[in-house]
């Protein structure tokens, strides 16, 4: 073997030949299955991204090195904004209805339903006396795990719903149980995460296995199919949910040729879809309604916005800061449980190296934030107690294992409820039961 060119040609040919054998066919399926059950990180966690590709490495290196100071700068700006907003919070409120809290929903704290190692359990509100009711009984291959991101319990506390692939060869299914944990219905559903409970607790909405949105009763019987308008994409795992009056499905979708996606209202009884957000170029996310349906909160372009439920373009409170995707309204609709994410440090590959997470209560009248729990690992608010005095939340530990906790709304009495649980929801038992 003589000469650099000859050697290089031989090496290139050998590499080409070495690469010939095909990749294992099951590998792609496994990856897609794994990714289907996780969401992409939101833009603020996604990192510096691909702008470095094609730039000089020196530039990209310095961009990476600037990540920390820039995040501090943004944090400082956010803090200043927060202070200003707190000072003038009373004056930025518009709409007299926002000053009048909704009537207190009646109910008492019932059972805790939670998901652990792919199994679904019913327990006392504080995690005591757990009973397995469905999903996987072991950490198998992941095909039979229960999984979800939304509420388990129906609003009236009489049913619970979750997704699982149990016994179906990795095909998603929805299961409905009664309040005692007995399975009463199950059906094959499309991809997704949440099972959206209608406000009257008689129906659920999920992506159908063949596209569109299925509306089924608690007995599993298909009642209606809602199709997306022609030319709109499903936008992956953006799950449908219900308008507060139960007359429409709300969904985040976009035309194939006009990203980003926006929230739309699809009337269940038929009629023209209506876009809920205005021409804001940024995709909104995380829309959450108060129990009475009068107000909404969502995030858009790095801000948390509170708006009337029927007009998302009129922000009555805006806080520019980084918050986690999940936001929970208090029963009276005057406070939001959110997670503020601060001190983010990302490496040059865009991976989040560290951050601090602050479970907070946002008083939407004053804009004041009260910190309930702080940690260096992810915190996710899950539910309020019916009395509004405790918050259920999950928190990861350093190994990435999630556990369920609760804390009072003044930040006292933090309690570990279930170690190792991925997700949970508190039942609101009607006061009459």
């Amino acid at each position: 073997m003589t000469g650099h060119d000859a050697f290089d040609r031989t090496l290139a040919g050998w590499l080409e030949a070495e690469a010939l054998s095909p990749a294992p066919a099951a590998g792609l399926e496994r990856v897609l299955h794994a990714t289907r059950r996780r969401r992409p990180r939101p833009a603020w966690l996604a990192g510096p991204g691909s702008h470095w590709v094609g730039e000089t490495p020196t530039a990209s290196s310095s961009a990476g090195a600037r990540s920390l100071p820039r995040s501090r700068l943004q944090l400082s700006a956010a803090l200043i904004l927060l202070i200003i907003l707190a000072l003038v919070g009373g004056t930025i409120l518009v709409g007299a209805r926002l000053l009048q809290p909704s009537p207190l929903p009646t109910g008492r704290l019932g059972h805790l339903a939670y998901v652990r190692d792919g199994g679904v359990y019913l327990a006392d509100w504080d995690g005591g006396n757990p009973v397995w009711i469905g999903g996987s009984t072991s950490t198998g291959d992941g095909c039979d795990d229960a999984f979800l991101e939304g509420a388990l319990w129906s609003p009236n506390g009489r049913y619970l719903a979750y997704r699982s692939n149990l016994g179906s060869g990795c095909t998603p299914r929805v299961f409905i149980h009664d309040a005692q944990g007995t399975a009463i219905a199950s059906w094959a559903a499309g991809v997704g995460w949440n099972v959206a409970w209608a406000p009257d607790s008689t129906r659920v909405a999920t992506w159908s296995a063949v596209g569109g949105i299925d509306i089924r009763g608690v007995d599993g019987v298909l009642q209606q199919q809602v199709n997306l308008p022609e030319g709109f994409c499903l936008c992956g795992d953006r799950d449908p949910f219900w308008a507060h009056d139960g007359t429409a499905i709300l969904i985040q979708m976009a035309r194939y040729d006009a990203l980003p996606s926006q929230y739309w209202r699809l009337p269940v009884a038929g009629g023209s879809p209506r876009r809920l957000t205005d021409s804001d170029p940024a995709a909104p996310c995380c829309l959450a309604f108060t129990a009475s349906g009068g107000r909404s909160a969502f995030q858009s372009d790095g801000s948390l916005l509170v708006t009337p439920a029927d007009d998302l373009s009129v922000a009555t409170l805006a806080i520019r800061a980084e918050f986690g995707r999940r936001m929970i309204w208090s029963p009276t609709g005057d406070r939001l449980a959110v997670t503020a994410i601060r001190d983010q440090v990302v490496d040059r590959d865009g991976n989040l190296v560290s951050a601090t997470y602050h479970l907070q209560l946002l008083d939407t009248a004053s804009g004041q934030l009260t910190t309930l729990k702080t940690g260096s690992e992810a915190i996710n608010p899950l539910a309020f107690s019916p009395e509004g005095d405790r918050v259920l939340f999950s928190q990861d530990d350093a190994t990435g294992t999630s556990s369920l906790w609760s804390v009072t709304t003044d930040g006292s009495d933090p309690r570990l409820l279930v170690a190792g649980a991925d997700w949970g929801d508190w039942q609101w038992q009607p006061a009459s039961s």
Partner: protein
Amino acid sequence: MQRDLVLRARNGDHDAFGALAADAFDRLHRTARLILRSDDRAADAVQESLMAAWLHIRAVRDPDRFDAWLYRLLVHACYREARRVKQREVAELHMNAPDALGDGDAQDLTAMRDQLQRGFRRLTPEQRAVLVVHHYLGLPDAEAAVILGIAVGTFKSRLHRASAALRAAVEADERTSAVVRESIA
């Protein structure tokens, strides 16, 4: 077409991401296998890189650069895989198409292939990655450097050293073989 898929995937459309992953899967696996010299470890690296791609898809600001971004994730996944698994090296021999190696009789080609196989295995994963990105993917120096996360100058010098190391390994192998042949004769 790919641009549309990236835009849709960036917006959370898993089907679009699935199409991108299906299109890239073979290429990624072949590249990873060359760097890691193991099918199983390559599969792990590809899985890790595609998982990272989905989780970080919103970081893709220029959809036309998606491929380069994906390769960078793969190379880093390969490095991590190589560091993580200090397992016993198992030779995985693949039957190659003879004409893929260029001119020469079959015996010489087989010997050359074996020499390259052994020599390549002696290189570090970083050296293999440089050679794979340059000779297999055929990328320009600037883009190859970005994918590997190093400066262009570093890339050039690393490529030179990796080539030299491989040549030295192959030549040492040739000398050893010659001694063996002479002793047998």
